């Protein structure tokens, strides 16, 4: 990736200098935990302040849900560089687990939730053993295959209600779900942020950037990849566990939704993959837009999704956070000596990016 510099950004540059953005990032880095606490407080307030159950609370709860899913995807896709097109498989597994346990076996919700996360993690370990040894597009397609296979299985089995799925009648109130998704999101964001500054996070990024080099440096990449994959599955499965009850209905189509999987990826990309805030921002933003389109132009929301995906990939692959970071670090490089730090002749030997 080369630093973006063009004449068109001149206006933007004069309004908001790279230095300013850089300061913004430094500020956020230094006070990350404080910001997280503030965000938690802000997010927890609306129901207390009078937001009633109903359309808006549902939309916001869904925003949290998608943020969880996008962030979870990003752990394996953005941080580790293994783009999974089948993360929703764990979503569906979690969703069906809670649905079956609460409806057919009358198990109380908290236990069913833990079971959902557990089953998701267990299947992640099994599936991961098979697919994590693949690279690049083989991995992506394999995960897509896994998603469709699990979808197919739930269509066939009786316990999952076959193609018609399951209807759940006794579910907690909307406020409960609001806080449930919100809490999981906060917990996940905190965890991902913490890990991104430890060696564990560094190694994941190294695997993304150059897995062979990471192996040559002594890291057992299988171990790290599996950990990331399982972590991603855990949160996805947990979110799914909540979803089936939230939605009071689950069927193969909604539980194992390939279009949603693409939606999550788009959210992570637009916001800025590989960061903590990126997927969250992307999820909030894109979900709101899609909701709006769904109400205003019924049926067109997925067309929009397709177009958004195309547009993002072609024009905007670093996403918001990524592009801003690149912009901010431009100045830093030149300020700190940059090319002048070595012989000028080296510029003739700049290796081309892969």
């Amino acid at each position, binding site marked *: 990736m080369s630093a973006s510099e063009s004449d068109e950004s001149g206006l933007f540059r004069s309004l908001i200098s790279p230095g300013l953005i850089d300061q913004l990032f430094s500020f956020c880095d230094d006070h990350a935990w404080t910001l997280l606490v503030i965000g938690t407080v802000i997010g927890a307030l609306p129901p207390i302040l009078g937001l009633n159950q109903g359309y808006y609370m549902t939309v916001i709860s869904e925003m949290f849900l998608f943020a969880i899913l996008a962030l979870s995807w990003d752990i394996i896709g953005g941080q580790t560089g293994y783009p999974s097109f089948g993360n929703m498989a764990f979503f569906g597994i979690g969703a069906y687990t809670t649905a079956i346990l609460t409806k057919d076996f009358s198990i109380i919700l908290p236990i069913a939730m833990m079971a959902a996360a557990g089953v998701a993690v267990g299947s992640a370990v099994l599936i991961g053993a098979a697919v994590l040894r693949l690279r690049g597009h083989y991995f992506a397609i394999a995960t897509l295959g896994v998603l469709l296979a699990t979808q197919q299985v739930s269509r066939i089995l009786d316990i999952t209600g076959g193609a018609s799925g399951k209807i759940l009648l006794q579910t907690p109130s909307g406020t409960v779900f609001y806080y449930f998704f919100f809490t999981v999101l906060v917990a996940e964001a905190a965890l991902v942020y913490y890990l991104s500054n430890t060696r564990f996070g560094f190694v994941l990024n190294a695997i993304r950037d150059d897995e062979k080099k990471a192996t040559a440096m002594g890291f057992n990449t299988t171990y790290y990849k599996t950990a990331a994959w399982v972590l991603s599955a855990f949160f996805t499965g947990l979110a799914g566990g909540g979803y089936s009850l939230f939605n009071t209905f689950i069927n193969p189509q909604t539980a194992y939704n390939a279009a949603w999987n693409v939606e999550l990826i788009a959210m992570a990309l637009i916001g800025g993959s590989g960061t903590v805030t990126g997927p969250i921002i992307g999820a909030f933003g894109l979900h709101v837009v899609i909701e709006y389109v769904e109400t205003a132009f019924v049926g067109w929301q997925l067309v929009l999704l397709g177009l958004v995906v195309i547009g993002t990939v072609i024009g905007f692959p670093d996403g918001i956070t990524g592009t801003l970071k690149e912009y901010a670090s431009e100045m830093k490089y030149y300020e700190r000596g940059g090319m002048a*730090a070595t012989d000028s002749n*080296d510029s003739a030997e700049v290796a081309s990016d892969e």
Partner: protein
Amino acid sequence: MIAQRWQVMSDVIKNSARSSLNQQDSEPVLRTDDVTKRFGGLTAVDAVNIEVREGEIVGLIGPNGAGKSTLFNCITGTLSADDGRIYLQNQDVTSWPEYKIARAGIGRMFQETRIFDAMSVRKNLLLAAQKGDADIGQLLRRPNESLIARSDELLEYVDLGGLAETRAGQLSFGQQKLTEFIMELMAEPDLLLMDEPAGGINPSMLENLIEYIRAANEDEEATIFLIEHNMDFVMEVADRIYVLAHGERIAEGTPDEIQNNQRVLDAYLGRE
């Protein structure tokens, strides 16, 4: 006991005449024993014996296709040798997986200079220092002060101070090469394998590079084994040189000895 007595003796012997024929001089850091690697009908590495002793800078030269990189790959575990044994600090590492060998103390620099482009130089260095100990406690802790200090120290060492927070991909090729070099030093390897370190470096930088390598060898006590095509470079930096041709070891000795070796000349001129 016995090992210690050998150690004392070997230190004495090392300071006087070289005795490359006496294999019990000092414990070699790396030893290969008739290592062989075949690809289908082609024998890329043919019963090669080499030895690298502690504190040495050893060069590996030979015409293109001689099997040098393949030998490296066998040593690091990227490829598995078909025959023969490889010993690191007297431990048989022949069938070990790549990451395990790296953890055991071999560092490797690549021909095409591989570093982690998207991360800052600092992050690259910190990553290199923590060489894959699977200790959970270490895994989840943030990098400590002394490591950060050491990374600064090494950056200064190669005159790259101030570039710690720059994204590694933005550095020039020469700077990236030096970054890869100090990343290896962060890891404090017992043995550092360098694959064509002089490749793509302009002549004035080469002098600096030789200095850095020598300094690392002395100050950091890094044992170095390098592949190189640039003859001037390798003759100046290496203590001892091995020559490979057609997968076989055809010569071994000091730079002077190699330069006057007819068989080596023949190999390079295609008469072998």
